């Protein structure tokens, strides 16, 4: 029994600590924005960005942190994740995001990605702010999900911080019944592409 308890404690503590967002009690976005301003811009143009290949039907999880590349998007700097999309006509992109640094709820934050599509010649032609629906389940925790129809000619997609100020999750421990998590330039996101 003692061994099981020790194991449980170790598991719980290790689950809370570590990673680029493991600073309990510190609201990280101001720090991360400073890092963003100080960082070197990775690329002169959209063409120079490195795009990872996105596979159909497989969720790709990304940590967007202060180590991520930085680009000047229409005069606004941002950390980002960039992907090359397999060609197709009826494609759907599902973007998920999870709140991070939540050991003390009030100092957690969440990245609420905007979805920027580029065409074959690396020209941005649609920037979408998908509505994110929040949810949480025991064991899985909290997450938010948005769904975007991929424009026919889209060849590349970039996920970067969107304009939303935060997201609210149900939380019975809060007086209001919901916990508002503020947005930030970094976070843990996932992306899945469906369709042919």
């Amino acid at each position, binding site marked *: *029994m003692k061994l*099981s308890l020790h194991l449980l404690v170790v598991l719980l503590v290790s689950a809370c600590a570590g990673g680029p967002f493991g600073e309990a009690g510190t609201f990280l976005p101001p720090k991360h924005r400073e890092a963003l301003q100080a960082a070197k811009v990775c690329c002169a143009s959209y063409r120079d960005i490195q795009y990872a290949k996105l596979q*159909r*039907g*497989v*969720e790709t999880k990304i940590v967007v942190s202060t180590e991520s590349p930085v680009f000047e998007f229409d005069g606004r700097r941002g950390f980002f994740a960039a992907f090359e999309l397999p060609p197709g*006509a*009826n494609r*759907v992109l*599902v973007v998920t995001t999870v709140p991070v640094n939540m050991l003390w709820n009030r100092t957690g934050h969440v990245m609420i990605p905007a979805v920027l599509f580029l065409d074959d010649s690396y020209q941005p032609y649609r920037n979408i702010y998908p509505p994110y*629906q929040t*949810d*949480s*389940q*025991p*064991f*899985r925790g909290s997450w938010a999900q948005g*769904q975007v*129809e991929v424009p026919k000619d889209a060849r590349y997609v970039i996920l970067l911080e969107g304009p939303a100020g935060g997201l609210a999750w*149900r939380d*019975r421990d809060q007086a209001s*019944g919901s916990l508002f998590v503020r947005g930030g330039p970094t976070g843990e996101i996932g992306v899945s592409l*469906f*369709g*042919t």
Partner: protein
Amino acid sequence: MNTSIRALFAVAITACLASCATYKPVPEGYTGPVAVISDSGFSESGSKARIFALIEVDGNSIDNSFTASARASQGQGFALTTRYVSRPIPAAPMKVKLKGSHTTAAPIHAIFSQASGSFFSVEGVTDFTPAPGGRYVVKGELSKDASSVWIEDVATNLPVTEKVMSK
């Protein structure tokens, strides 16, 4: 640890894991065509709503607006927070279970609504063949005389499945 405690742990862990598992209509690694289907509904009051949802695909329960709304309303007493789920599905023939029903945040409210004759529900299985790239919505009607639920094509506003009727 004695045997009975071990057994209890095993049962608890199995139950917990089973409750976490949700069938994904589009399986991991699926590269075929998809369509998108959304649940629908509307609030009748702050504590009661009508929801029309896709709840099973080929006999497997999927996350839907009933379960999502129940999760979103936990711990709020009588206040209902509705969540309407939209998800990709494979564009292939399938058996779907549709449900149209009133829903409430508090079970006691549902019991009183049923007793007073203002809580209606219908569900059933029907065939559905989504088209690649199709956009669909689950629609329905709830009334004392007859309730029904079906899937509609968003582009044409026409039903694309049989209407599941209350008996």
